[in-house]
């Protein structure tokens, strides 16, 4: 026992620089393996949780998992890198056969609260005395809601992208307004003191059957007033007496709102909807293909109007491969470095080992002591990973024994040259002073 205690102390404290490298190598290995296994578990679990069943559908609800995942509401608020990444993702997904969309719905009293007397009279004339369905909609709502125009047109891209920059905000009315409004009518929002804003009717919808999903259960869009995504109406910049003809003229408060559409698009990914007319498309797989490029998988599409069908067997294969290659190469580099450092350290220690042997201490004890020391370093090297896991996730994300097992393999390989050189330790060398 005395031998182990003294020799371990000598070895642990006797080569500070070398031991630091050993520890560093092991920590790196533990971290690499941790990332590998953690991702594997994470991906597998998410996969099983969300994509277990077979489904067929056209419309889906999008959902983003817990707060530890990317794409959160606060990203939209703070406009983090994740926000721009999300917008990129939005573009990519919508360039594919699947389209995302979202809307804001409000049932407004007071005939929608139009301020202009002429408009209000038209409202009453078209039979709307009290409540009006008031919508702000995103891209692709036309297709997603299955709407058709009877007059005029749907919003164009310019209007959907920059609703705040339009001199008059485009508005589309449901079929029940057709008797009172025509395409080209101008609706005036006027407060004697504060603002003046205008909207222009660009289209009238055909009557659509009641839609049972998206929370719209009654008359569909027949009693709807539809605007592009704007934060509020009348638009805040619509100060009385001002004529807004270009971006340069916009006051600061408006410029701040220019990214409102972007923020809404970002939110669409996290809480919006998805529309895919082709039922044979494996929607989830398609989304995963896009998101996996950015290294996360948490956007899930839950069918609203039926069952969807998913072939997604392993969403994570490609990423897992990448992580695996990285982890394995890190580990191999660490293994080589560890083996080399340990080998050199053992060469330096051979003189000491020979002295031990001359005092009757057998070689196996010397080797066992080396193995014990490596186990000590291993335990220490696991600490940062444990600490990180506890700090980040408040739990040990993966069973510790799996990292430990991996480290044991790394250790066994890298300790082998040292054990071999020890086995050739010969007192003859000590006697002839050929050590060091």
């Amino acid at each position, binding site marked *: 026992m005395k031998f182990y205690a003294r020799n371990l102390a*000598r070895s642990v404290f006797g080569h500070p620089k070398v031991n630091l490298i050993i520890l560093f190598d092991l920590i790196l290995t533990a971290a690499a393996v941790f990332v590998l296994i953690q991702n594997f578990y994470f991906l597998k679990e998410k996969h099983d949780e969300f994509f277990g069943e077979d489904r067929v559908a056209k419309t889906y609800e999008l959902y983003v998992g817990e707060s530890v995942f990317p794409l959160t509401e606060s990203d939209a608020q703070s406009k983090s890198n994740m926000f721009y990444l999300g917008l990129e993702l939005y573009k990519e997904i919508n360039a594919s056969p699947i389209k995302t969309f979202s809307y804001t719905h409000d049932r407004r009293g007071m005939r929608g609260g139009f301020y202009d007397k002429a408009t209000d009279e038209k409202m009453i004339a078209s039979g709307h005395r009290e409540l009006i369905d008031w919508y702000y909609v995103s891209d692709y709502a036309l297709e997603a809601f299955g709407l058709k125009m009877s007059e005029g047109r749907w919003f164009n891209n310019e209007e959907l992208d920059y609703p705040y920059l339009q001199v008059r905000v485009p508005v589309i009315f449901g079929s029940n307004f057709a008797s009172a409004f025509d395409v080209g009518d101008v609706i005036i929002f006027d407060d004697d003191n504060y603002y003046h804003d205008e909207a222009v009717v660009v289209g009238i919808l055909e009557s659509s059957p009641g839609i049972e999903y998206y929370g719209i259960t009654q008359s569909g869009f027949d009693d709807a007033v539809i605007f592009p995504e704007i934060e509020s109406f009348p638009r805040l910049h619509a100060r009385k007496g001002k004529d807004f003809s270009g971006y340069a003229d916009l006051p600061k408060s408006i410029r701040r709102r220019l990214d409102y559409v972007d923020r809404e698009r970002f939110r669409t990914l996290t809480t919006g909807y998805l529309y895919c007319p082709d039922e044979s498309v494996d929607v989830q797989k398609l989304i995963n293909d896009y998101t996996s490029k950015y290294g996360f998988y948490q956007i899930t599409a839950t069918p609203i109007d039926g069952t969807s069908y998913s072939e997604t067997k392993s969403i994570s294969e490609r990423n897992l491969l990448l992580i695996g290659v990285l982890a394995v190469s890190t580990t191999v580099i660490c293994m080589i470095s560890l083996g080399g450092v340990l080998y050199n350290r053992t060469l330096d220690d051979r003189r000491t080992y020979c*002295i*031990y042997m*001359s*005092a*009757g201490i*057998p070689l196996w004890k010397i080797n066992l002591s080396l193995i014990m020391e490596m186990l000590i370093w291993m335990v220490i090297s696991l600490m940062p990973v444990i600490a990180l896991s506890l700090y980040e996730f408040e739990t040990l994300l993966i069973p510790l024994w799996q990292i430990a097992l991996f480290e044991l393999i790394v250790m066994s390989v890298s300790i082998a040259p040292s054990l071999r050189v020890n086995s050739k330790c010969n007192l*003859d060398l000590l006697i002839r*002073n050929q050590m060091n």
Partner: protein
Amino acid sequence: MALIELQGINKSFGTKDKKVSVLENLSLKVEEGEMVAIMGKSGAGKTTLLNIIAAIDYPDSGTYLYDGKEVKTRNTSQGIKFRKDRIGLIVQHFALINDFKVYDNVELGLWETNVKGSARKKRVMEVLESLGIADLKDKYPNVLSGGEKQRVAIGRAIANNHKLLLADEPTGSLDSDTEQDILNILKDLNSKGMTIVMVTHDEDVANVCDRTIFLDKH
């Protein structure tokens, strides 16, 4: 009965084509309690002979009897076992562990023995005192003089009170005054009953011994 008896020992080095014979048909006896010097030219095989006695190296042929029993040791771990309770080793370049204090360097010789606890401490102090280095016990080897280092090395070699002490040029790297000190220590150990076999180049050192064995170079 002789403590060491070598009969017709042959030892050569090198490959089959380039064989260098070092020991040829060597026979010798060392009685218990003797102090024997081994002399010979460089390359004569003195260290080789010592290695064979210590079971660090093995003869190609011939018989080696220790205390009347044949020594058939053929590998390092068998060698360690064989030496453990029989032979203490001293080398020219004072093999000390620099990370250990003088006390621990001597105590090291007892780690693998049944001498434990206070008996071990007593024994170490006894050895340190007999070598006149008790006041150095808390020092590290790198601050010691050559003579002091060699005493510590002797201390470790004799701590377990082996019957036989083997020394390869124990005074080889010391000045003549210090050499005399070490010789006195060895002589003293011998007078207390320890058998000593040591290699030396020095006539004066050999003269201190009871007997000198000369090896011829082949």
